[in-house]
């Protein structure tokens, strides 16, 4: 924030100019990027939300709040609720599965850790669509899983594993679990083990040490992981379409359809805006909670 105060009166202006220039150089590319690819598109979305739809897509320059009132109709609220439910369940499952995995990796000898982390991100080397499609191949009624179970006599009829809300959650969980594990691992690796040692030396059981030391200190990592999983899950439209068989509609599908099928850009803009507002709120909450946790950690 502050430039060195030990400058003469005459030199201060020049120093400030130099500081401004270096700021411009360092921030310039980022600001340019954010302006072009964030600020302007969001301004467009906001302005479209208040206009009337054109007959073939696009907008008419007529002020209208109709898209906002429409978003409050039960059918769209239920889609939003359904999306929130799916994203929440996915995030909770990712946390329950990811936490022990990250913990185990952090406890590994150093040379195995790298290998384990590479394995975690390995799926990202292949295309998301292909990976999602693989689930269809695996789980469909004529797929290897059902065929195998039938051949072994475990089941008499193929199981209807696909095209359900559960299948969507499995797909999202599979896609985004690494995004939960990585920040969790980072927070666990940074963990000061002398704190746990101190806790056990002072008589705390291992369980108690975990809940009073490890868990609070890894909570910020968990929250970042939760955001990383929740945000793309909430907006996803490929997984519900492929694994939900079009029978599960999430808000991402709804937005996509407004632009590509229904030609209702203002309504699509309103739905997109709802998502943006919602997610900004979520980030603010995350920032607030981690600050509180970090503050407490510093005092401890």
């Amino acid at each position, binding site marked *: 924030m502050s430039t060195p105060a030990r400058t003469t009166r005459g030199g201060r202006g020049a120093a400030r100019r130099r500081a401004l220039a270096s700021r411009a150089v360092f921030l310039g590319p980022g600001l340019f990027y954010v302006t072009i690819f964030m600020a302007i*598109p969001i301004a*467009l979305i906001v302005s479209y939300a208040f206009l009337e739809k*054109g*007959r*073939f*897509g*696009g*907008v*008419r*320059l007529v002020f209208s709040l109709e898209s906002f009132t429409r978003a409050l109709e039960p*059918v*769209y609220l*239920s*889609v939003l609720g*359904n999306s929130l439910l799916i994203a929440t369940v996915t995030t909770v499952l990712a946390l329950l599965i990811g936490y022990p995995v990250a913990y185990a990796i952090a406890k590994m000898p150093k040379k195995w850790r790298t290998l384990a982390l590479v394995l975690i991100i390995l799926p990202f080397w292949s295309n998301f*669509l292909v990976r999602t499609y693989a689930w269809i191949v695996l789980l*469909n*009624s*004529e797929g290897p899983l059902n065929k195998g179970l039938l051949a072994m006599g475990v089941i008499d009829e193929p199981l*209807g594993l*696909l*095209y359900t809300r559960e299948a969507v959650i499995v797909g999202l969980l599979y896609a985004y679990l690494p995004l939960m594990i990585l920040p969790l691992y980072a927070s666990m690796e940074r963990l000061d083990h002398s704190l746990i040692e101190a806790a056990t030396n002072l008589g705390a059981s291992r369980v108690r040490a975990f809940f009073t030391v490890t868990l609070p200190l890894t909570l910020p990592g968990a929250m970042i992981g939760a955001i990383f999983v929740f945000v793309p899950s909430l907006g996803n*439209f*490929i997984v519900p*379409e492929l694994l939900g*068989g*079009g*029978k*599960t*509609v999430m808000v991402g599908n*709804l937005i*996509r*359809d407004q*632009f*590509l*099928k*229904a*030609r*209702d*850009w203002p309504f699509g803009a309103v739905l997109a805006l709802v998502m943006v507002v919602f997610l900004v709120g979520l980030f603010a909450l995350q920032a607030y909670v981690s600050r509180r946790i970090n503050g407490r950690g510093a005092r401890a």
Partner: protein
Amino acid sequence: MRAGVIRRTATAGAIAASAALVLAACGGSSSSESSAALDPNADLTKQALTISNWAGYYPEDLSAKFQEAVGAPLTIANHATNEEVMGKLTAGGDSGIDVAFVSGQYAQALNDAGLVETLDQSLIPNLSNLYPEATQLPYDPGNTFSVPYAWGTTGICYRSDLVPAEPTSWNDLLAPADENKGKMTALATERWLLLPALKSLGYSINTTDDAELEKAKELLVANKADLLAYDDTTFYNRLMAGETNMAVAWDGWCNYGIAEDPNIKFAVPSEGSDLWTDTMVVLKSSKNKEAAHAFINYILDPVNHAWVAENILYKVPNKAAMDAVGADLAAAFPNMGMTPADLVKQEAIIDVGEDNSKYTKIATEVTSG
């Protein structure tokens, strides 16, 4: 028609949508005055032509062959959906597109908006190759502003070896036999999502009557539990795999399944179905109208037009082309042999304008319910 001959990945669609979003930042359309009479002796090599067609809906060497035959350089832009190209054409100003491929109802709407040129039929002598039925289509009788490229209908694509009885009615889908429950897919695109219910109730597929739409919706909501999935693009793969017994299907797409498995068959239900047409139109803003007419004439050449039937397995409204294709194709793919007289008995699908939002809403209610 198709939401694209092949709907690319959803991601590609999303990118296209955001691109269109930026492109069409301001709406409104300007229609220029009708141009002067066309010059039949214009130097076509000076007219660089740009067309927009569905990806994969034309031969890969079309540009080279067209330039060789006609002399005009040809650039081909691809679109994935009608909506996408309509966004470009109606954004105002010159889209840079001379000839656009759009479905009939969209051609009609473009004409209503004054954006397409009245065709000079003397420059398209190959129009005489069209079936008489194809010159009197409801959205443009007499082909005054559009020329049909392909046409067809929607029906039931099924595995004759798996269904307990061959389907003959939309009710075979809407009130299925137990063996078919959970073994059926329906189309997800809104107008075709509603089609089976509307036809089974005896309503028009272009209805805008709220009571009729509500009844159709109730039928579809009840039907949802019996469906495996809604599927516009891979239903024939599911049939081939035996994952499903039957599917609501566009005729041409069912052929992709028939090509792999002779047990797959196609039936148009007795209650009737739709007639869809994909057309070519010349934009009023085009500065290369002579070449644009020459392009349409080139496509209507029996050899060139037959390519669509042979490779896309869509019926083409070109008698000379269909005769050239021969009986083999119709033997292999029975719906290719459907006569124009039978086709035009189906109800032509038209754009319902603002009321389209009713269809969209019902589609959302059905699929999310």
